[in-house]
């Protein structure tokens, strides 16, 4: 009977939370925003989400199969990447574009650097920026036939604010505005964010510091206008980015102090890009640039070991 006993190093018990559970929780948290996007922009938006997720999962499978690596699509990380990428797409994007983005995200940003946990940028955001640069026209076209937004009324609130036009705060909070599929409804995004915080998938540290820094920045440099500040926070991809992309485990610092620095850096970059950048949007670039600073931030903010200041008597 002795040869049936397992022997391994302690500890001999494991917590119930697994990588798969965590990814599944993120998917659940994305459902309100996805549902709102589909409700508002129509079933084509759902097709975009499904196609992007499928492209991500399929490219991960094909790559791992071809490279004779263990197949990891069951961990759900490719699904999350696909959903986040799709929710970053304009509602009437030609469907092959996000699919191409999905392949780019998984193969170039994730697998070429070693797969899950090794990517140096958030794959979904890197793919979005890749598409923004490659297909600027389609990526910045927020027309929606279902809502009757044309190229004039389809200006996003951020673009409208840049042009000095008035914006409707209530419409932004609910999500009755032009924008990408998943970023428009502040309420839906906050429900998802709150779910992740309650389930302890993310800590509120990065999102709150990020949003707070943007608020202070645009308040100070936007002419001390409170309404303008609130509008800035609710417009564009800030809420989406702060809760779902800046908190990406792989590309944000693990140290608590590092997360504070990271949040402030994100806020400053976003503020600069939004107020003075070439495009009214700034969140995606702010996040991927900050991703690049992550290893440095982490190194400089290592915690002090317990009792390190103590002395031998």
């Amino acid at each position, binding site marked *: 009977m002795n040869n049936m006993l397992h022997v391994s190093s302690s500890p001999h018990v*494991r917590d119930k939370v*697994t990588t798969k559970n965590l990814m599944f929780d993120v998917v659940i948290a994305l459902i309100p925003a996805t549902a709102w996007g589909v409700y508002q922009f129509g079933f084509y938006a759902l097709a975009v989400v499904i196609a992007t997720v499928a492209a991500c999962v399929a490219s991960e499978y094909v790559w791992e199969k071809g490279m004779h690596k263990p197949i990891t699509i069951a961990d759900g990380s490719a699904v999350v990447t696909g959903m986040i990428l799709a929710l970053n797409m304009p509602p009437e994007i030609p469907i092959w574009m996000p699919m191409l983005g999905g392949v780019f995200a998984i193969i170039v940003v994730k697998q070429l650097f070693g797969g899950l946990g090794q990517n140096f940028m958030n794959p979904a955001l890197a793919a979005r920026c890749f598409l923004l640069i490659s297909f600027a026209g389609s990526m910045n076209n927020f027309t929606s036939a279902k809502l009757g937004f044309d190229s004039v009324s389809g200006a996003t609130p951020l673009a409208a604010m840049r042009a000095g036009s008035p914006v409707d705060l209530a419409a932004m909070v609910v999500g009755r505005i032009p924008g990408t599929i998943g970023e428009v409804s502040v309420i839906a995004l906050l429900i998802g964010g709150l779910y992740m915080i309650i389930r302890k998938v993310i800590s509120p540290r990065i999102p709150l510091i990020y949003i707070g820094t943007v608020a202070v920045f645009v308040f100070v440099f936007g002419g001390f206008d409170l309404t303008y500040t609130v509008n800035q926070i609710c417009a564009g991809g800030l809420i989406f980015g702060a809760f779902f992309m800046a908190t990406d*485990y792989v590309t944000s610092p693990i140290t608590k102090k590092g997360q504070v620095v990271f949040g402030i850096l994100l806020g400053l970059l976003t503020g600069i890009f939004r107020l003075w950048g070439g495009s009214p949007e700034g969140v995606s670039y702010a996040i991927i640039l900050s991703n690049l600073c992550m290893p440095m931030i982490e190194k400089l903010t290592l915690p002090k070991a317990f009792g390190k200041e103590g002395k031998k008597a």
Partner: protein
Amino acid sequence: MGLATFKGGVHPYEGKELSESKPVQELMPQGELVFPLSQHIGAPANPLVKKGDQVLAGQIIAEAGGFISANVVCSVSGTVKAVEPRRVANGAMVNSIVVENDGEYRTVEGVGEDRDYTTLSKEEIRKIVKDAGIVGLGGAGFPTHVKLTPKDDAKIDYVIVNGAECEPYLTSDYRLMIEEPEKLVGGLKVILQLFENAKGVIGIENNKPEAIKKLTELVKDEPKISVCPLLTKYPQGGERSLIYAVTGRKVNSSMLPADAGCIVDNVDTVISIYNAVCKSTPLMRKIITVTGDAISQPQNFRVKLGTNYEELIEAAGGFKTEPEKVINGGPMMGQAMFDFHVPVMKNSSALTCMSKDEVAANEPTPCIRCGRCVDVCPSNIVPVLMMRAAMNNDAESFEKLNGMECVECGSCAFICPAKRPLTQAFKEMRKVVAANRRKK
């Protein structure tokens, strides 16, 4: 007000309900008893008997082999069968004295006699503790007489009794606290006699309200002794965590608790000091919790040192289901066993029999850098980066990341959603770093 505790830690399934209500039962050994010469941290003891010698219960059969070492006391009367290497619970072969039990339990003269500790000098108390072969019974096995001999007695202002028993499944300290609280307080008073400036604090996790109640009641008229309820959280009973929770002082890996003015002893150690000093009874027994979902009747036993583990399993009714893993100790820091034909030693605490091995059921996957290991680490270091160094066999980076501050509590490996064997890697790296340091 929040309960005293530390930063970090985890909440594994406690499993204490299996055995916490079972009074400690005396278990008489059969056949031969095995006394390894190394049941403590430090040099092995030197045998004082040889094959064929008659020995008595309470007789010192091996004496401390150095300053940091401890005596071994025979727990039965009988004949020495052999002095030879025998397997112990951690899998190693250790030179041991094997005694055939004659079943008469004749003792050395004077064992069990009452003694008034207040008339003893400090030196006398320390000598009694040393002769009794007492070591830290919480598992570390550090010789107690050494611990009780700091550089300057006057600088010790806390004597902390570790009654946290934070390791899941273990209930032996709990049973002692509610069955023999007077001895615990008595032992603490003996220690306090060594340290004139110290107050005694009994730290108990709040999942043991009965023990907190009993001991609080018992010490209400003792001006120098108090009970400190602690938040139930693993590893609350880790020495550094406990000192921090009780005193707010921080101890690092290069310090001894005495450097922070503290002496920490486990419940059973304190009771053993009482037995040795006040009842002239050296360390001859151990309380062992036999538990887990694979054992028929989980319970607590009072066992003579040297008893075979197989007898413990038998006394607990054997296995009700085939165990997949059997652990010497608890699931967080215990060692998986492959052979039950090993003796109960001073650092034994429990035999946890699990029908399922959660480690094998959870294949490691890539690290997703979620940072949970950082949140739970009681040493406030960064397991995720230490793991990277360990995977690269990079001892230098590992040391720079304060890897030597790791207490190997297992919290990081427990919490890891990717199920990575962090603690295992750290144990190996710490050995490498320690070996490199010795070379220098």
